[in-house]
């Protein structure tokens, strides 16, 4: 399954890049994220609670940053185990480009699921993943462009 998207963020490229590498910002933006611990500059562990169709699960997994090209691009890859719910793994290539004072963030992501999520929720994966990605980047943009009344999902 493939996803892609593009977001315009009213912040400088350097600021966006810093946020993309900041565990606290990411934790605040990942929907359902309960924990995100950075163990090195490129390695993190995470706990994320998700509901896909009829399957609700808490995924524990590792996230690695690869192909670092500061402040222009990186790849973020991860895999999570959801117990009997199965597993999810995937990755995204993220690119930043400057457009005046603003930054354009674009990404191409892929994801695979297995176990119960695949058996029961495979029809819902694409739409759920697209929704989650959208939520993440919207949260991320909002985190960098503080506005009154913003809430995190």
């Amino acid at each position, binding site marked *: 399954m493939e996803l892609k998207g593009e977001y315009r963020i009213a912040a400088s490229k350097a600021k966006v890049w810093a946020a993309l590498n900041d565990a606290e910002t990411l934790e605040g933006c990942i929907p359902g994220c309960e924990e995100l611990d950075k163990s090195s500059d490129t390695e993190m562990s995470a706990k994320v609670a998700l509901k896909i169709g009829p399957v609700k699960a808490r995924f524990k997994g590792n996230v690695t940053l690869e192909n670092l090209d500061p402040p222009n691009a990186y790849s973020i890859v991860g895999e999570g185990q959801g117990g009997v719910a199965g597993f999810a793994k995937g990755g995204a290539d993220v690119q930043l480009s400057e457009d005046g004072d603003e930054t354009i963030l674009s990404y191409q992501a892929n994801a695979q699921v*297995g*176990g119960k999520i*695949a*058996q*029961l929720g*495979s029809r819902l994966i694409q739409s759920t993943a697209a929704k989650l990605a959208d939520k993440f980047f919207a949260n991320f943009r909002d985190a960098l462009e503080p506005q009154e009344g913003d809430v995190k999902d």
Partner: protein
Amino acid sequence: MTEGIGARVLRKEDKRFLMGKGRYTDDIVEPNQAYAAFVRSPHAHAEVKGIDASAAEAMDGVVAVLNGEQLTGDGIGNIICGWGVTQKDGSGMNMGAWSALATSKVRYVGDAVAVVIADSIEQARNAAEAVEVDYKILPAVAQSMKALTNDAPEIHDNAPGNVVFDWEIGDLAPTDAALAGAAYITEMDITNNRLAPNPMEPRSAVATYNDAEEHYTLYTTSQNPHVARLVLSAFYQVAPEHKLRVIAPDVGGGFGSKIYIYPEEITCLWASMKTNRSVKWTSDRTEAFLTDAHGRDHVSTAKIGFDKDHKIVGLKVNTKANIGAYMSLFSSAVPTYLYATLLSGQYNIANIYCDVQAVYTNTVPVDAYRGAGRPEACFLVERIMETAAREMGVSPVELRRKNFVTSFPHQTPVIMAYDSGDFATNQDQALKAADYDGFEARRTEAASRGKLRGIGFSNYIEACGIAPSAAVGSLGAGVGLWESAEVRVNPVGTIEVLTGSHSHGQGHETTFTQIVAERFGLPTENIQIVHGDTDKVQFGMGTYGSRSGAVGMSAIFKALDKVEAKVKKIAAHVLEASEDDIVIEGGEVKVAGTDKLMGWHEVGLAAYTGHNLPEGMEPGLKETSFYDPTNFTFPAGCYICEVEVDPETGVTDIVQFVASDDFGTIINPMIVEGQVHGGIAQGIGQAMLENVVYDDDAQQLSASYMDYAMPRADDLPNYSVHHASTECPGNPLGMKGCGEAGAIGSPPAVINAITDAIGNNDLSMPATSAKVWAAIQAASAKQAAE
């Protein structure tokens, strides 16, 4: 005789089912019962690097967490395949090891790696979630064709290239020569889609170990409890045979999937000994999709040749059979001796050659499912016959008729010797019932409403009544396929029949009583059928392959012969008459031509009091028979399906379905019609709705009723069911068997009808609306291009 052979006796077993008083395995509650939950692999192919059960073991109510190392360490044997197939080169099968709980490797999604035993089912399931398994994920493959490619992952070390066996039947050179000289050739790629069996009752087991007696009891959903006991004992070493009682109580459907002895039953028995608790496991529906043996999954190419008069000269077939991740009990027999031996269909074909490559994949094991090999053969033969008729521009009805076998016995080039049949009469009867002559008018009328109407035929033949023991033994079977019966006449004259057959929906408790009622003129209410308990019933082979009538009832028939002979001897002695003058009718034992008689109960009493028996006769009235059939039986018939397709949406309605079957002697027409209805429903399910889907990583995507479409009432037509029978010469009742015919004969009739309607022969099962619509679009695009 209102309750004898041919009577529509209502099913005796239905009262308890309708009152909700059936007693299924999950209804069994043992004192001190614990529950099992299996930890299953979410990966299709992975190494098991380690299992950390510490968190699970610490949870409330957890009795034990057990794994494959412990199981094999206790000497529990690997799961067996009961039929050895010899390869083309004379070597045996490349069979990989299958442990009830995986040790070093998992090979399909659902493969069990550990089991949690806990006080409640909730505690067991929660703890199973807490078991941490460290997997090293390996590449996986789900499709047989992909598994045969060079870069496919190897699933078992001892099956190079994932080939389990490469087998052939028939003569290659004469077949090639016949095809080379043919006036017409039709070639096709034919896929038979993978199905999940879906009995209404999921599998279940309750195992109890009694340490004082060193004795095991297993309640389980089995079609053949004695075979289960034998295999659990002799091969899995769970317990010696005399220390293991297997009971299959009421069982809610099997369709083949409950023949096999699965990892869960083995594990429950072993876990019961380990924990000294009764251990219950009941599959949930998704677990059933993940672990019940699947059916079909053949990918074939076929080539048929005709002479200038449209007589078949040869048929050549290659089939790739997906075996799944492990070899299930009869997995090797299904795509070989139960399949390729039926490729002659109802036709006189001098030259047939078929070779079959059985292939390991990272999927649920595949084994017998209602029809088991014969649906695959029938689909191939009847699709290619219909296609050939279209290509040669002749009537599919006439083409078949021209090639029918008309004299019996008929030896085919693929082992089977057809003993009887009348294919033309069944075809005539079906054509008449379907008003075939009026079809073109109906097609025109449908067109005026914007609908595409089509008609399709299927002239199936199958082999039932499995099977002569020596014959199947020579072909590799590990068991004989006879059946046993014991007829006990009680001192008061009531009768218990202990049968080695097992009823799980077939209505044996009704049909079997009818042949006893017929023989002695007794009411069926005085007759009880006992089955499904190894402590009550003598060894028997169980129910599958439509064998319970032709084989199981023949054993009863033979035992009745012995009872009748003894009754006559006793009555002749008491009534001071010649044995030859004794007749039994209407529940009375009479001296013919006189008014001297004994009531049936009086003979029973005389046998058990022993006060006045012939010199040297043993008291009692109880006889046993082990019946071994002399041949397979060959049910055959003609199915006609008529459909209307909405070209805008691809939605297909079956507007008519006619069946004319030759089942030989019919004991209870109501039950036989029920079997035909159910079989056709499953066949239509395969043709239009059902499909097991795996993604490229061998994840099963259709493991619930949200994604696996079962046929429902509104998907199915009213069936028009007829019979034109020839008596089977191979057994005393003349029966052929009816349990699988519907599922065997119907899929090609449906696909032939839809392809006729839409004018595009390129349509695979299941023919969903989306696929039919796409095929219509492809046909009109092709037409436009021309």
